[in-house]
């Protein structure tokens, strides 16, 4: 079941969607969400640019995506209606707030005629309700200004939707009480609106029948928590530092959609976390490098444009061989691009966006909860191999939510760091069997040494311009990164063991790809989905997997960046690209259709 809330960005649709999500999680449905909010937060009210949406997909089965086309669309004004109705499933339910359909509202949305009456909406089950008016009536004897009363309309709407899906009102009422603890009159008004909406739905039996989505069957036993990607990532970074036996240091600069990570980590000061909001992205990564030099685990979080600014310093971390976690929450590019939309177009920037031979391991998270595991993994690689690590997320993961089966604490495997302390024969560039260099932190007697951006002698660690030495150091840095392969598992294809088609995907295309492949597989096609978490180095054993399928396709929200990488690494196979660069995630349906097409090709 997929439902989308759409309205003006001032209408509180994000909030409505998030409340619906939270409540849905508590009744035990599996879910995934996809908030889609406008770039111009202050776009003129009522215009198409100002439309803000929130989509949630829930079901009693495992969910991998925030859904295909919604079957229910809530549209709070004409602009929201006109920009969203085409996505609604044929026969789907459209709940429209007719209170916002005056001449001038239509004009602001750039409409010449009223879509409610001109036939635009034929084929949908349209429910017209003057939600503005209903909300005002419900709050008639409340001591609030007209404006404040009208603001409660999103909770009235939420009440109606709760009725439709038989959701309990209590979680939201609790939330309101807490949220407006200092303004009980607002808590009361919103609660009233919520209840009124719910009762209204019941009273009018607005919808033909209403849906009951039963609890997820066979959900693995355990403790669950609803989590958004950015928060999971923040928690993962803190947990990762702990597992390394270190304290986290985050140097960052706000940028959509990565800012929440900095915001969330700023709250976690009682977990030995230091956060510094710096003057720019360069300072963000540089403080992190300084903190790592001093013996903390340095981290920096950003999005594509910020990653571009960090490149020179990332190279410094490569040559000084300091641990560092760099997070890029991808958004639409190039340049400022589509800051609030999703894309996977920073992969090659992450891989190659530095001067010189500067290999950096790259890993990518697939879902909101996977962001936790990947953040821990990034910390492991950074500290075990003394290297910067690039962790890729994206806007879809960052702002998406899902129920997260919490790991059992004792099962989280620590990877403690050992600092050098013995002056006997110390050299900053002596290495362990993984080729990771010594880490000696300032304050340790007898181990004073200098590191820096100039090439260093492989043995003494002093500046060296020797040609042979530079070749040797370049090879060592390369070999160290490639050696990470020994510590990562070979991913297994999901679906047919061998056969006609292998779909190789990475990052947040996980859900849609998995769903599309499962559907095709059920229809009898020998197809499988291989999802890559480690993009660099690529895990061992891929060659053998690729050899088991006749065709390989790589769907990506870019122009085929992983496909290019795979093509150059595995020239014996042909990797077909399937690109979508629209600021929107793939839908399972479109992937399935495309895969079917490829299967037909001779």
């Amino acid at each position, binding site marked *: 079941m997929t439902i989308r809330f759409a309205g003006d960005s001032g209408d509180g649709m994000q909030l409505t969607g998030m409340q619906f999500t939270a409540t849905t999680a508590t009744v035990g449905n599996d879910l995934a969400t996809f908030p889609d909010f406008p770039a111009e937060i202050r776009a003129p009210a009522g215009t198409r640019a100002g439309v803000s949406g929130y989509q949630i997909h829930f079901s009693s089965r495992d969910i991998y995506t925030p859904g295909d086309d919604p079957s229910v669309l809530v549209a709070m004004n004409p602009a929201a209606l006109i920009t969203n109705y085409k996505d609604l499933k044929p026969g789907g339910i459209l709940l429209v707030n007719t209170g916002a359909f005056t001449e001038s509202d239509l004009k602001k949305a750039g409409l010449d005629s009223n879509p409610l009456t001109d036939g635009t909406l034929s084929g949908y089950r349209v429910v017209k309700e003057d939600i503005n008016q209903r909300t005002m009536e419900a709050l008639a004897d409340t001591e609030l200004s007209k404006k404040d009363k009208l603001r409660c309309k999103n909770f009235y709407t939420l009440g109606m939707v709760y009725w439709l899906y038989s959701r309990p009102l209590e979680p939201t009422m609790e939330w309101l009480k807490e949220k407006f603890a200092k303004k009980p009159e607002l808590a009361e008004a919103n609660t009233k609106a919520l209840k009124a909406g719910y009762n209204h739905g019941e009273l009018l039996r607005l919808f033909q029948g209403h849906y009951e989505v039963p609890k997820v069957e066979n959900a693995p036993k355990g403790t669950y928590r609803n989590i958004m990607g950015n928060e999971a990532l923040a928690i993962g970074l803190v947990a990762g530092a702990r597992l390394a036996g270190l304290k986290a240091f985050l140097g960052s600069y706000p940028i959509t959609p990565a800012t929440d990570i900095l915001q969330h980590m700023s709250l*976690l000061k*009682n*977990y030995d976390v230091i956060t510094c909001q710096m003057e720019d992205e360069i300072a963000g990564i540089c403080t992190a490098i*300084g903190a790592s*030099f001093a013996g903390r685990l340095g981290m920096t979080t950003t999005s594509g444009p910020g990653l571009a600014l960090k490149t020179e*310093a990332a190279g410094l971390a490569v040559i000084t061989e300091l641990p560092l976690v760099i997070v890029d929450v991808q958004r639409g590019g190039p340049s400022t691009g589509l800051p609030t939309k999703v894309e996977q177009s920073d992969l090659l920037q992450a891989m190659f966006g530095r001067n010189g031979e500067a290999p950096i391991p790259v890993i990518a998270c697939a879902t909101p909860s996977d962001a936790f595991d990947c953040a821990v993994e990034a910390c492991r690689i950074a500290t075990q191999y003394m290297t910067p690590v690039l962790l890729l997320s994206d806007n879809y993961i960052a702002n998406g939510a899902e129920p997260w089966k919490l790991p059992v604490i004792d099962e989280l495997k620590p990877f403690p760091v050992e600092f050098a302390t013995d002056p006997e024969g110390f050299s900053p560039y002596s290495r362990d069997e993984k080729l990771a260099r010594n880490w000696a*932190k300032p304050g340790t007697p007898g181990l004073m*040494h200098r590191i820096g951006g100039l090439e260093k002698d492989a043995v003494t660690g002093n500046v060296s311009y020797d040609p042979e030495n530079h070749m040797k150091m370049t090879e060592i840095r390369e070999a160290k990164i490639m050696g990470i392969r020994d510590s990562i598992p070979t991913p297994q294809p999901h679906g047919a063991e061998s056969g006609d088609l292998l779909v190789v995907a990475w990052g947040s295309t996980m859900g849609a790809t998995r769903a599309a492949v499962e559907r095709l597989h059920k229809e009898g096609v020998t197809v499988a989905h291989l999802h890559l978490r480690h993009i660099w180095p690529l895990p061992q054993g891929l060659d053998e997997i690729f050899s088991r399928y006749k065709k390989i396709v790589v769907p990506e929200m870019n122009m085929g960046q992983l496909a290019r990488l795979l093509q150059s690494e595995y020239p014996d196979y042909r990797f077909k690209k399937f690109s979508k660069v629209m600021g929107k995630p793939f839908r399972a349906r479109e992937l399935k259709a495309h895969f079917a097409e490829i299967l037909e090709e001779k």
Partner: protein
Amino acid sequence: MSELQQLKAKDFKSDQEVRWCPGCGDYSILSGVQATMADMGVPQENFVIVSGIGCSSRFPYYMETYGMHSIHGRANAIATGVKVANPDLSVWVITGDGDGLSIGGNHMIHSLRRNVDMKIILFNNEIYGLTKGQYSPTTPMGQRTKTSPYGSLDAPFNPIQLALGAGATFVARTMDVNPKHMKTVLRAAAEHKGAAFVEVWQNCVIFNDGAFKSWTEKAVRDEETVNLVAGEKMIFGKDQDKGLKTDGCKIEICSAEDASVWDPTHESPGPAFVMSQLDNDPNMPRPMGVLRSVSRPTLDQQVWDQVGAVTGTKGEGSLKDLLYTKDVWEVK
């Protein structure tokens, strides 16, 4: 921590051969810093020197301390990370007029306003030395350099004023050719708790020889500069017979007896700023010494205090607390 034995300047010499041009002003700054560090009573392993890129930024390699020769302009940001991560360290930034005021100008002003407890030594030779002689943000207008063959058109920064404007709590100036003066200034910087900004006039013999000689040469130095000493009268002149008198807005030359007493601890940076304006008046001596020295909480201290305070109220968080928050539910 090792026994706090009395360190000597030579303990701070690394085994690396110093590779500045013979006659470069950088040598005397190296000696000055080594001597200052030896006297600070800080264990040698607690010193960290961070530099950017430039001739001056080669500095850390010549020092037997922890050090990082980083990338162009970013030393202040890296040093901020070091100091905040471990406030027990004595953190020093070595930078040039290009490194610290041009490409790194942003980090410079922000580290000053945040009052990160670190010593920032800006080697001002009014030129890009390492890249062989292009004009810098402190090169005087009209000067011919490799990239301004017809004269530079860029108005220069006055580093002292930039630091004052950025809210620096300690601002001072000294020169390479007066080691004694340099030592007192470096010592004062070392003792300052907070960001200490020290501009050192440094002669680049190769690309900008004599840039400061009309103020620094022995023959004219006493006449053309005035050494500001906290609590003492502002006296200058070959015979130390002249003084500066100020009402806080205007500065006039007077007799030594009538000279005003210099106070770098004013709450307002105004007097220091007025003093730095003397640089623009060819009839006035240029101020040297400590222009400003005030006390303000440091960033590093506050960061740790905040961590302590939050931990105090919320309690030390465990991994379990981090993951298992109050909104969890069970699937049985």
